């Protein structure tokens, strides 16, 4: 609306300009026409048009009177000729006008005046001598003169009629021209009047528009003033020197100064705390110099402001700048946010308390779950023993039920522990190189027996790049296993497809996408978003079968997030589901085409018995062992395992610790008692590597522990001590067994902490020892003792023996030898040892 009227006003102004020009032009035209009419009129005024008629008539009169006088004198022979001569003179004088004067000439008469003058001239030339001559001669000639005068009169008459006609013609033309001019003048005057009227209308309209705009502008100003007055934020406008030029009522309330007090004052001294004044002055100076102001037009910022009472309080501030009449002005919007900040602080502390409470709960649950497992293990072990002793089938059935329940409870406890570990960030992801394709295909194969059993198909395909990755293959596998077991569980017709590919390449890392698609019943849309939440079980009957606590997928989600990835599901009810995960991995160091075992010493083929109740673990172990060229036999529980071991001599028995019917510990004790595999190497396979477990495992007669996640590397290490020694002879720098022990005892991260502490403390000690010349022998001895102790922690035998020897020398008064030895050997040996420890850290 305003834009339209402004466009109209713009147009009207253009029209006005054009009209002004046109009016000026027509006024010019009017003046020109007026001048021409004036000229024309003055021409008419000064013209002797009427003169000619007058002159002709006067000449005629004089000629007639002369003729009369001649005729009178021709008759009266004795009359005086004086009157005749006077008449002739008068005629003569009149005729002279035609000869010499201008009275007979007018524009348009052509040669007529000349003809006229010639007639007269000829007549005068002929008669004048007679008139001036003697009276007698004159009288004698009078009759002839009368005739000649008559002839002249006729000739003159002809010419004069022609002249009058010509003159009338010219007069007509002139009058026509003049009336044309007057017509033009009339038209021009009319046009000018019309244009002036139009101009008047445009000007009037423009005035109206201007008045309306003025009204609007006044309205806007009033509204703006009202807005500023009623704004909740304090509004302060200052010039570029920082002097206040506007100060809103809200500012009065915020800062305590009245408008009258504030106007004209310097911002800095009025409302800026002393601590900020310097920065303010610098900012103002910079703005004046560069025209830029860091805080201007930069959104909201928080600062301290000064109240009249001297109290500093927090404000939120937005500054914008504009060009005013007197140069640049700054408009500051300020809000006292003391209350808000207090509320925020309150909220933060409430939140922190709530979080702390949540953490405490999580810790409590973790501790409880952990603590539950020990008595639960006791229950399970006791039930196993009872099961062995019971002979009544009914009792055995009840014991079996109790064992199943105890196993389920244990799994629940483990799940909860997983969740709490993931929540509290306590989960340690391993970092190792692995071949994604091999890992996945092995994993999928472990599910084939179940699929065969259910008579559904199981397909696996990895397309595109098959990189060597670095990460935690076990945790990745855990997610895929969960997906797969769910898919197989819910699919009764059709099959399950696992597809894997590199979905994104980011420099030296790859995002792996794995999709597990089934042809099961699908998941209702409403449930798709919540199935990754804790304790969600869509099929109640599934929960009742006691297969889980509804934590599987939520653990998967947490694992994926912990690995920096994401998981999700797409499902159409009635058609099936597709669970997917995308996880980024760094590229591994080894080429996937290189066989895993190539850089190791060839391993002798052995007869391996795998005692494992879990089909997945069985399949993983089986696959890994087959790759290592081992002969594998499976047993599904401790009892069956013990029986198999008794019947056949196996080189190595991989024994799951916790199994239904009979656990690994019991089975081991049975095997060690008697049978073909009495002296075989028995390795415990467990995910739980707590120190107390370690003790129980050793006590049962097992030789080694294989901790999950199982990789081919640690599998090789536990399969055969000799194989390990052959591959990597002990160099005495570090004791591998000690390290393995420590890892079992402390966990990987505990070992890492210890190694870091070892490097730090060792570095200090060695540095002090290397300045041995400043030390008394007692002090040196004490230091050597300390260093030897430290070295023995990680089984650094060489370092320990060097330090111990130096200590002995000091004690037996041979400090100089000790110093000599330390100077020579300590530094290089420490460097070597430290390097080995560091490589341990990197592994």
């Amino acid at each position: 609306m305003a834009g339209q009227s402004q466009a109209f006003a713009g147009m009207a102004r253009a029209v006005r300009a054009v009209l002004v020009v046109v009016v000026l032009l027509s006024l010019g035209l009017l003046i020109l026409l007026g001048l021409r009419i004036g000229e024309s009129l003055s021409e008419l005024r000064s013209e002797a048009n009427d003169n000619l008629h007058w002159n002709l008539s006067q000449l005629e009169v004089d000629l007639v009177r002369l003729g009369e006088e001649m005729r009178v004198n021709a008759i009266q022979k004795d009359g005086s000729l004086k009157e005749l001569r006077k008449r002739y003179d008068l005629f003569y004088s009149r005729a002279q006008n035609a000869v010499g004067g201008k009275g007979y000439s007018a524009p348009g008469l052509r040669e007529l005046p000349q003809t006229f003058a010639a007639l007269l001239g000829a007549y005068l030339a002929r008669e004048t001598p007679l008139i001036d001559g003697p009276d007698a001669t004159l009288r004698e000639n009078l009759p002839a003169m009368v005739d000649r005068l008559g002839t002249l009169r006729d000739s003159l008459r002809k010419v004069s009629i022609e002249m009058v006609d010509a003159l009338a013609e010219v007069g007509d033309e002139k009058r026509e021209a003049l009336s044309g001019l007057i017509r033009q003048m009339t038209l021009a005057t009319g046009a000018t009047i019309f244009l002036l009227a139009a101009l008047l209308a445009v000007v009037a309209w423009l005035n109206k528009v201007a008045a309306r705009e003025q009204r609007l502008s006044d309205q806007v100003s009033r509204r703006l003033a009202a807005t500023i007055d009623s704004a909740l934020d304090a509004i302060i406008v200052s010039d570029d020197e920082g002097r206040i030029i506007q100060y809103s009522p809200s500012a009065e309330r915020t800062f305590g100064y009245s408008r009258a007090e504030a106007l004209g004052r310097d911002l800095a001294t009025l409302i800026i705390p002393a601590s900020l004044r310097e920065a303010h002055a610098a900012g103002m100076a910079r703005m004046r110099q560069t025209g830029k102001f860091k805080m201007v037009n930069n959104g909201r910022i928080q600062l301290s402001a000064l109240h009249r009472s001297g109290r500093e309080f927090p404000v939120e501030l937005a500054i914008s700048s504009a060009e005013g009449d007197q140069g640049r002005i700054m408009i500051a919007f300020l809000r006292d946010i003391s209350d808000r900040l207090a509320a925020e602080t309150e909220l933060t502390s409430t939140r922190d308390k709530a979080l702390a409470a949540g953490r405490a709960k999580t810790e409590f649950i973790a501790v409880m779950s952990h603590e539950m497992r020990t008595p639960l293990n006791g229950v399970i072990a006791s039930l196993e023993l009872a099961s062995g002793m019971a002979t009544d089938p009914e009792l055995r059935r009840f014991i079996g039920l109790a064992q199943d329940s105890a196993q389920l409870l244990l799994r629940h406890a483990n799940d909860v522990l997983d969740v709490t570990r993931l929540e509290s960030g306590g989960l340690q992801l391993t970092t190792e190189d692995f071949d994604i394709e091999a890992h996945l295909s092995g994993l999928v194969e472990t599910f084939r027996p179940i699929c065969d059993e259910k008579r559904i198909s199981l397909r696996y395909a990895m397309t595109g790049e098959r990189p060597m990755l670095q990460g935690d293959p076990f945790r990745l596998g855990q997610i895929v296993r969960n997906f797969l077991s769910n898919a197989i569980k819910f699919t009764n017709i059709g099959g399950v497809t696992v597809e894997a590919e590199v979905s994104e390449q980011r420099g030296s890392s790859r995002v792996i996408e794995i999709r597990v698609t089934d042809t099961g019943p699908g998941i209702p849309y409403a449930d798709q978003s919540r199935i990754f939440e804790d304790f969600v079980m869509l099929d109640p009957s599934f929960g009742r079968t006691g297969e889980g606590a509804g934590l599987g997928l939520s653990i998967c989600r947490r694992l994926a997030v912990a690995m920096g990835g994401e998981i999700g599901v797409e499902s159409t009810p009635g058609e099936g589901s597709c669970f997917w995960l995308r996880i980024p991995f760094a590229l591994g160091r080894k080429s996937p085409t290189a066989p895993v075992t190539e850089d190791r010493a060839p391993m002798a083929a052995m007869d391996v018995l795998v005692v494992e109740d879990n089909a997945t673990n069985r399949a993983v172990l089986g696959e890994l062992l087959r790759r290592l060229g081992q002969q594998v036999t499976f047993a599904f529980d401790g009892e069956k395992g013990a029986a198999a071991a008794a019947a056949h001599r196996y080189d190595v028995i991989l024994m799951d610790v916790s199994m239904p019917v009979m656990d690994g510990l019991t089975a081991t004790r049975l095997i060690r008692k008697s049978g073909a595999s009495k002296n075989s190497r028995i390795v415990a396979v467990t995910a739980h590597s707590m120190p107390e477990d370690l003790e129980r495992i050793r006590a049962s007669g097992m030789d080694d522990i294989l901790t999950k996640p199982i990789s081919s590397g640690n599998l090789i290490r536990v399969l055969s001590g000799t194989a390990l020694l052959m591959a990597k002879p002990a160099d005495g720098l570090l004791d591998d067994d000690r390290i393995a022990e420590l890892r079992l005892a402390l966990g990987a991260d505990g070992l890492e902490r210890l190694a870091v502490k070892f490097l730090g403390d060792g570095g200090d000690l060695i540095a002090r020892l290397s300045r041995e010349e400043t030390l008394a022998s007692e002090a040196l001895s004490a230091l050597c003792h300390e260093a030897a102790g430290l070295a023995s922690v990680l089984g650094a035998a060489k370092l320990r023996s060097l330090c111990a020897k130096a200590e002995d020398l000091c004690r037996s008064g041979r400090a100089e030898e000790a110093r000599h030895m330390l100077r020579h050997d300590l530094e290089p040996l420490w460097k070597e040892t430290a390097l080995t420890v560091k490589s341990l850290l990197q592994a």
Partner: protein
Amino acid sequence: MKSFLRAMCGGALILSLSLSARAEEVAAPKGEVLLTLSGSLEQTNVDGTLQLDQAMLEALPQTEFTTSTTWTSGTPTFKGVLLKDLIAAVGAKGGTVTLQAVNDYAVTMPLADVGPEAPLLAFLMDGETMSLRDKGPIWMVYPYDSNEKFRTEETYSRSIWQLTQIIFAD
């Protein structure tokens, strides 16, 4: 000698004209009468009129100018007495003056129209007296060339030639 006489006569006229406070007989003209004034006059010489010959005219203040006219070719120089000088000299009063020519042409004009520079009662054209044929004896002319105001119909119609009589009316 002749010019001396003329000067003497002029001197007498001026002398007599200077006594204009009362009507008085002025000496009769000696030469041919060129102009006869009548009507409301203070000065008279013959039968209640004032007859003036060339000498008497020449005794009055002389004015001359050169101008073209619509009736002549070239630019003649006219010399004579300004009408206002004549009026002043003869003590004429009243509202109008009527001028009459030999050919019976007459002009009547208000005395107020008599200007300070025109009309001129010329009796010499290019130093010569003017015969009847040359629009003599007296031709009342205006300096037509000097100003546009003298080139109007009215001025032309008042330019009376062969002038012999002037009658002042109240």
